């Protein structure tokens, strides 16, 4: 077990390194292939009226004249060992993990990311709770009453749910429940209230994105749960459980659900991992200042350190979620051995 975890952690680091190299290479190379020079790259970070000399200084300062490998090395070293951060009047230590500092605001990226994280975390986890509860419950009921009116209706809604783009449902929800509404449910955009500050406001501001996001996922989970339940409930061991004289509730919950939920656990882990890296569309639609919005803004401004930071954090969540899921799987399914 311990060696397995260690091995997985090493692999996780390797994977993140590869992700960072590819990200770096793409953002470094593509603009140059498009004809950018170090100076033209630097020009966008010194305002529109800077002199050629100032542009040149900035290009040197930002390290644009160094080869790719040197630039990447500097970036990687910052994450592992920290870096020195020149904020103007002096130099400050930017402790590890130092993701560098924004080309545009000249502020370190890491505190920014830490600042955005609670938003995405709140959005993802709140939505996850809703979609797991709603999706699994609907799926189980649908499976148990296969062919019933409820089943058909629920599956119809679920299919519609997975077929609707979130930027469409999001806007529609804003139009109906928020914009210009006298009793509007949510205050979209910039109105994130940290949980520890005011739990009620926290929930109030997030309820609409939660529901919209959860609807999309709940639909998928209802379908998955239903299929899983149908498959599990036709397993031999369910027949055994019934033959033992268990009542139906116990058969469904203890024997059926346990089997059906195990694969869903895997998918849930991966979904949550992806979402924690930034719910790009949801955050854009609701103007939530989370990781996804951060990523989009960073891309718009071509702010490489920010893009690198947010990509790596997102990849970290995916890799980490995978590890957790595999460990959990071993706990849930005794047949699985880690090695």
């Amino acid at each position, binding site marked *: 077990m311990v060696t397995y975890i260690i091995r997985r952690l090493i692999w996780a680091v390797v994977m993140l390194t590869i992700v960072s190299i590819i990200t770096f290479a793409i953002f470094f190379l593509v603009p140059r292939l498009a004809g950018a020079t170090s100076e033209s790259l630097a020009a966008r970070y010194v305002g529109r009226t800077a002199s050629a000399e100032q542009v040149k200084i900035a290009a040197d300062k930002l390290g644009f004249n160094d080869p790719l490998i040197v630039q990447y090395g500097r970036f990687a070293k910052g994450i592992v060992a920290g870096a020195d951060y020149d904020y103007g009047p002096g130099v400050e230590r930017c402790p590890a993990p130092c993701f560098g500092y924004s080309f545009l605001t000249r502020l370190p990226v890491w505190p920014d990311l830490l600042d955005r994280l609670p938003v995405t975390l709140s959005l993802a986890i709140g939505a996850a709770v809703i979609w797991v509860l709603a999706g699994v419950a609907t799926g189980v009921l649908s499976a148990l009453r296969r062919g019933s009116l409820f089943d058909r209706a629920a599956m119809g809604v679920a299919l519609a749910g997975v077929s609707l*783009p979130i930027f469409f449902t999001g806007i529609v929800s804003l139009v109906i429940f928020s914009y210009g509404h006298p009793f509007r449910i949510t205050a979209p955009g910039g109105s994130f209230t940290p949980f520890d500050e005011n739990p009620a406001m926290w929930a109030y501001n997030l309820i609409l994105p939660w529901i919209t996001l959860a609807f999309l996922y709940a639909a998928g989970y209802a379908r998955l749960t239903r299929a899983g339940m149908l498959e599990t409930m036709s397993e031999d061991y369910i027949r055994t459980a019934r033959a033992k004289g268990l009542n139906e509730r116990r058969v469904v919950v203890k024997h059926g659900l346990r089997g059906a939920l195990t694969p869903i656990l895997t998918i849930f882990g991966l979904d949550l991992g992806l979402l924690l890296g930034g719910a790009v569309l949801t955050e854009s639609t609701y103007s939530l200042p989370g990781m996804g919005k951060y990523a*989009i803004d960073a891309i718009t401004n071509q702010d490489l350190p920010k893009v690198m930071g947010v990509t790596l954090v*997102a990849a970290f969540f995916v890799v980490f979620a*995978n590890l957790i899921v595999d460990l959990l799987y071993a706990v849930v399914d005794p047949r699985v051995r*880690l090695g």
Partner: protein
Amino acid sequence: MTAPMDVTGGDTEAAPEAVVDASGGKAIQGRSLGQIAWMRLKRDKVALAGGLIVIFLILVAVFAPVIVGLLGQDPTQFNSDLIDSSTMVPKTGTGISVDHLFGIEPVNGRDIFSRVVYGARISLLIAFLATLLSVVIGTLLGVTAGFFGGLVDSIISKTMDVFLAFPLLVFAIALAGIVPDSAFGLTGDTLRVSLLVFIIGFFNWPYIGRIVRGQTLSLREREFVDAARSLGARGPYIIFRELLPNLIAPILVYATLLIPTNVLFEAALSFLGVGVRPPTPTWGGMLADAVRFYTIPHFMFFPGMAIFITVLAFNLFGDGLRDALDPKAR
């Protein structure tokens, strides 16, 4: 993620496998898998409806110029005289008239009907081609990994892990945003479509790849592969003659279900402004334009419904296809 886990005693990837062993025990004899599937599909009215809508949409896309010639006008044609120049919306509210069946867009007065019809072209073209790309790469690498195993499998599986760890949407936006307007000898719509196909298709292949790899792993142990091997057949022969035919059903199902995902992906990129360039109409782009005028939901309705119906139709059809090919899932 699958590699280091080992399930003793049972095959956890049972669902797709069932596709292969047809209907157990119910004594439906003498019919090929395809016939059985078609029989089941014929009875699934909902899936058939989905299939019909899919065909309809494809026809609409193919014959867009004809349809628009009959019922609309050039999708990039402005109708400024129908627009209220102070509020930028159509003078009649929606602009619906005999000439403009779905009304006109705000600001420029372009015919919504024509744009929705032409939008189907981009949407379907990109979704199909991207799916094709994913399927080709995913199948090739999945079969290779599953068939050869060992180091090859390990490398391909790890590559898939790396791909799956990328924040896909962020990456797609970034790439689509920084690629200049003429590159690789292509320009205009051709370049944008190719680029989007590449981005969407290239980053989605691991999903197909994993399924194909799993299938190949289980097929590899089957008797007929052993038989072929004992007769001296070589790797490529076994892959193309023995494995691939047995993989067609699951690949078909997952490809059909990947198309709607790709439709949504393309719509999202267009919505975020990194899709095909205007004035070429795209549903995501129309939606993005309409959002500015959300007080008149009319503008959002048609592109939104177009996306919804297309995705829904493919989902319905894909579900039906899966059920038809995999009776266990019913």
